[in-house]
């Protein structure tokens, strides 16, 4: 399974990649923001996108909307992983089509469970 991890904080990308490796997902690519991620998503088919919210120049929410609006990529599972934990954020992500929403800080078990729920 090919996974794209999107976060502007390289350490966070490394942490998520490490957790994915421990869970058993070895095919992982990284992007530093929404624009970079969108380019990669259009060039390569990913089975799952795990994205931060608060990034420039394109936020995770805008990336999600772009993916959901795309004719062929629209159904790609998309997990938002963010410190944005207010109700309006969660609702906005759900309305935009997020498959799951994980609040930072999180555990490996939470990530594993959310991935299992979206790829089932």
């Amino acid at each position, binding site marked *: 399974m090919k996974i794209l991890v999107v976060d502007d904080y390289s*350490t966070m990308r*490394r*942490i998520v990649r*490490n957790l994915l490796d*421990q869970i058993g997902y070895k095919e992982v690519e990284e992007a530093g923001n929404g624009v970079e991620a969108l380019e990669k998503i259009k060039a390569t088919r990913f089975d799952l996108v795990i994205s931060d*919210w*608060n990034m420039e120049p394109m*936020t995770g*929410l805008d990336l999600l909307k772009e993916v959901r609006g795309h004719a062929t990529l629209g159904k790609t599972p998309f997990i938002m992983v963010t*410190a*944005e*934990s*207010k*109700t*309006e*954020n*969660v*609702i*906005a992500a*759900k309305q935009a089509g*997020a498959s*799951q*929403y*994980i*609040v*930072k800080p*999180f555990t490996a078990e*939470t990530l594993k469970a959310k991935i299992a729920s979206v790829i089932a």
Partner: protein
Amino acid sequence: MSRMLAETRSAIISMAPQSGGTIRLHEAGETLDVVVGETERATLEIMHQAERAQAAAARLHAGTSTDAAADLSEVNEAATAIVMACIFQDITGQRIRKVMTALREMEDRVASLVALLGIESGDLVTAAPAETPLMNGPSSAAEGGLQQGAVDDLFG
């Protein structure tokens, strides 16, 4: 008028950086940059040591270790290094507290100056915050932040 100008001058002078236990205000930004750097370095060190321990544990688990005692020692050494790296929290905490102290002092002095000049709160015009919808950053429970369980409930 002359007395008021003198008092205002004294108030402005008192806003100048103090020597002693606190930092100078203009150093606050630099101090926070140092905190970011120290935190990043500590995190990378912790990640490096964790990956080192995971690799040794994986060899032992898979039965491919050529020296089990050495691999066990590696796991233990990595764990110790992780604990040592966590010392950064104490150091960065102290730096942040210094910045907070400097900001509180500045806030008190600005409040004194505002009172001295007879400025009412209604006179203060604040610039409209930049449009950053839904970009609040981390929120505590008191600030309306949700725990994972509540998020799961919203997602159904």
